[in-house]
């Protein structure tokens, strides 16, 4: 709201609502999420609030703090809440208002979790996520993208490298 107040009328005319869904996965883990924010069309830049979570709890092994020969296996749910900035680069335009390009996104936010069946909780904290991908945009509104995601977790047997697929819709001006 504060950001919108300081924008000039010309800049406001270039702003659209930006809504998306996405999923990312590797052999050990799968997440999905929802996004909502604004797209600055003249900059080919989007800023989005993003909430995502793991699809179902994941079994993780945690060493006891007091006894190295004792391990606990928990079923961990995990959630991510943060803000993502995405920049798009057009490679080629085709048809009527369609284009192909590449995008890069950086997410920063808070990651928190829960172990099922116990009051013990996993480590929470700030986290980052990076994405690069080709995209196809139709009618200057609907974007499909799929590419590489880097999401480091504190769970040693879940890789930070993932594949992701996203769908975004821009609604409103211009």
């Amino acid at each position, binding site marked *: 709201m504060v950001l919108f107040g300081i924008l000039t009328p010309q800049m406001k005319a270039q702003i659209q609502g930006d809504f998306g869904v996405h999923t990312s996965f590797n052999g050990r883990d799968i997440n999905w999420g929802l996004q909502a924010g604004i797209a600055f069309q003249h900059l080919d830049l989007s800023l989005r609030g993003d909430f995502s979570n793991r699809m179902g709890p994941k*079994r*993780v*092994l945690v060493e006891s703090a007091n006894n190295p*020969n*004792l*391990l*606990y*296996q*928990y*079923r961990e749910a995990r959630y991510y809440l943060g803000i993502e900035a995405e920049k798009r680069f057009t490679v080629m335009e085709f048809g*009527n*208002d369609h284009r192909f390009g590449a995008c890069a996104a950086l997410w920063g936010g808070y990651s928190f979790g829960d*172990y*099922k*069946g*116990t*009051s*013990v909780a996993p480590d929470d904290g700030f986290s980052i996520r990076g994405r690069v991908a080709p995209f196809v945009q*139709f*009618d*200057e*509104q*609907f974007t499909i993208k799929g590419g590489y995601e880097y999401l480091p977790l504190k769970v040693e047997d879940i890789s930070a490298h993932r594949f992701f697929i996203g769908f975004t*819709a821009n*609604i409103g001006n211009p």
Partner: protein
Amino acid sequence: MKTYTSAILFGILAIVSGCNSDDCDTSFSCETVAPTYGTLTVSVTPNDQNPLVPIAVYIGDIEDSSLYFVDTIFQSTEYYVDLDVTYSGSATYRDGSKTIIAIDGDRVRLKEEQNCELTCYTVKNGFLQLGLKP
């Protein structure tokens, strides 16, 4: 073109959100007598070192110290349990010189819904996945 695409998007949202005001489905199997118990399925992964796996099931979180029952099992086992209770469980495995304690929790729920002016009951059974991860 943009009008068409916006209309398509709106249509998809309307379908996903379920714009159905019909509250009487005659094909719906309605159980009008409220069940008094549900099932809690406990799964384990026995192996050469752990052919039988000792388990303990608690009411609430494991730390609540409210032990419900203990057992020793070698395969997935179902137990009849009270409804609308959250259960937790642990299974203890030996792994060489180490001990692994697997922990999980779930809630067994009684659900009510109205259909054709009847109250229908269903049970969401619980699962404690105490098997070792691959």
